[in-house]
């Protein structure tokens, strides 16, 4: 025992009993983006060489653990200078209300709003709180978008050539015709991660917007229009039609998006519904994949499609950080054209800076062109109850596997909606 104890003590001492001395002049950034750490580190080195200011990017993944770290650090009053807040807008609102996030409106508006104008407006809106917002947050802009994203459809060019299809479909009927041709050659038509509810929600909501327009969708969320309305039946029937036309890859309702991405990357399906992050994913899985981006084919040809999109990831500034101006200067530099082009080329994400579009890879540019027609539930004046959305998505899964009809799903969802509204009123 006498011999062991000193050894134990030595291990403890060697293990480092004293806290590490934090360098106060270093800008510390916490993030969760594993694919961007190397690029961030290189940018930090560039910035230090240029300005002498040391920047340290600290990566914590996966995102759910990162979110827990942020909450724990907020409670311990130990947040870094810059960090990201994941999740819904109400989470950002909570951090703002609790005094953890700085209001950056003045910085964005300086020099005739030069910094603000450099971003896609939709991306900035995710971090913006308008006057009289539902979260009761002081109006302003509270975050800096680092990149943007949107979700569209993709098609495999080689499979199109094989099937003799010359142009991507513009309408839903053309899409079904293409599927029939592909099926005759034994090629599966469409794949998406419809094992994940949010992907179904995304697909169904853009068609709801196309079929009945935003006002009617919002009226449904407010409880003024029933889910049994013929337009909603039409939305649900799209999934039955796709099922009846054998447009969907087998097992689509159990596929997570990562597995759906494998299917498209390996040429197992001709169409995919996926977000702009897929460019990086497909490049890693199959660099030789030939594909292009297309808007989801319209059901109503007279109404333009809207797609989900907005800020991909954003950074916020710690309200209590001491060296505010240095932090802002760094963020302005990071979102400048050159750095955004670098990030886009290295990580294959869409830049948040509009000026960077001229120098990004072609497939990303195809995604970027649709940024102006993006929408997102976080920007809508009303959101559906999560329970109702979940029931709606599960109903669609039931339609796809033939367990329910669109009419039955609509009735069930409406019943739940009424119950939820009654509960809210109480």
């Amino acid at each position, binding site marked *: 025992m006498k011999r062991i104890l000193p050894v134990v003590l030595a291990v403890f001492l060697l293990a480092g*009993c004293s806290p590490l001395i934090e360098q106060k002049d270093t800008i510390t950034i916490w993030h969760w983006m594993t694919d961007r750490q190397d690029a961030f580190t290189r940018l930090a080195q560039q910035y230090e060489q240029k300005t002498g200011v040391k920047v340290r990017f600290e990566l914590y993944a996966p995102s759910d653990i990162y979110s827990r770290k942020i909450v724990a650090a907020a409670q311990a009053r130990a947040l870094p200078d810059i960090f990201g807040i994941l999740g819904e807008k109400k989470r950002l609102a909570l951090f703002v209300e609790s005094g953890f996030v700085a209001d950056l409106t003045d910085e964005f508006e300086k020099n005739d709003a030069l910094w603000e104008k450099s971003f896609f407006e939709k991306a900035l809106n995710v971090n913006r709180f308008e006057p009289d917002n539902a979260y009761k947050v002081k109006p302003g802009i509270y975050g800096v978008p680092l990149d943007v994203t949107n979700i569209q459809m993709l098609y495999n060019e080689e499979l199109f050539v094989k099937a003799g299809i010359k142009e991507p479909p513009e309408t839903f009927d053309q899409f079904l015709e293409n599927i029939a041709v592909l099926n005759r050659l034994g090629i599966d038509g469409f794949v998406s991660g419809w094992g994940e509810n949010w992907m179904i929600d995304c697909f169904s909501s853009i068609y709801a917007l196309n079929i009945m327009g935003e006002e009617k969708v919002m009226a449904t969320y407010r409880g003024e229009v029933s889910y049994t309305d013929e337009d909603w039946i039409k939305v649900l029937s799209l999934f039955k039609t796709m099922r009846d036309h054998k447009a969907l890859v087998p097992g689509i309702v159990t596929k997570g998006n990562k597995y759906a991405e494998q299917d498209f990357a390996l040429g197992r399906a001709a169409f995919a519904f996926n977000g702009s992050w897929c460019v990086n994913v497909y490049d*890693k899985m199959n660099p030789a994949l030939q594909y292009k981006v297309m808007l989801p084919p319209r059901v109503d040809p007279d109404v333009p499609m809207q797609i989900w999109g907005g800020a991909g990831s954003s950074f916020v500034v710690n309200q209590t950080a001491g060296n505010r101006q240095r932090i802002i200067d760094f963020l302005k530099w990071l979102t400048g054209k050159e750095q955004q082009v670098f990030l886009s080329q290295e990580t294959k994400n869409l830049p948040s800076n509009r000026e960077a579009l001229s120098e990004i890879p072609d497939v990303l540019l195809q995604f970027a062109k649709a940024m102006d027609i993006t929408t997102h539930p976080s920007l809508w004046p009303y959101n559906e109850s999560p329970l109702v959305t979940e029931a709606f998505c599960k109903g669609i899964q039931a339609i796809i596997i033939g367990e329910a009809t669109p009419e039955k799903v609509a009735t069930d969802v409406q019943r739940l909606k009424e119950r939820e509204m009654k509960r809210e009123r109480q």
Partner: protein
Amino acid sequence: MAVSNYKWIRVVQSVFSHVFLIFVALTCLFPLLWMLRSSLMTNETIFIDKALIPQTLHFNNFYLAWTQGKFGVYFLNSIIYTASAVFAIIVIASLAAYAFSRLQFPGKNFFFYLFLAAMMIPLPGSFVPLVVLMNKLHLANTRIGYILCMINVGLSLSIYILKTFFDKMPSALEDAARIDGCSKLGIWFHVALPLARPAIAVVVIFNTLNIWNEYILATLLLNHEHLMPLQRGLMVYQGAYSVDYPMLMAGLSITAAPVVLVYLFMQKHIIKGLSEGATAG
């Protein structure tokens, strides 16, 4: 004739049981083999090449994981955290368990049940208070802070396992040691600890696995990359959108190897400890 029949039945039973056990063993080994073969492939071939042994073996993945993936640094950290915390748990838990089992002191049962109650608190529920506490003590982002937390996490179950063993220790052994001039601490060290070797083996493997695989608390408490344990390396290969499977599998192989070795070295004690634990009480 009857003897011959009996032999045949034994042979058939033996064949069936061995085939069944081989099947079970294969189902246990298959994920490990799959992990190893995937670690020797590339991102392009991993989804295409279905063979158990890949056409081209990329041993470079292990080198890249060790150097670029910083598994070398993380590996050393995990060794330090696991060795220090497990050692401290053994010392503290065996002393406490011995006291709870053999000594009489006021509030003995109260404190023992308090330790048992600590086992009922789910670990994630204590994360935020731990982070706040460590920050207040200026121990956040230090190795010692993390080691202390992991000792705290492992103590309750270890005390419970060891107390169960000490309860069964014959008091005559203690009396003999006392006559030979042993102090209470001497009896613990020279008599109780050697007897509790199977239980200690169970405590070692439980805590080694727990600390070796721990990641959430490490992420919450530690901020610097060079303080992080092995699990961080694995998480980095699992992006939000894409996964670098070959590197992840190479990292997993590196991570799993020491635990497999610990188990192989201690399996006799572990089986004995578990079976004795099963019949205890």
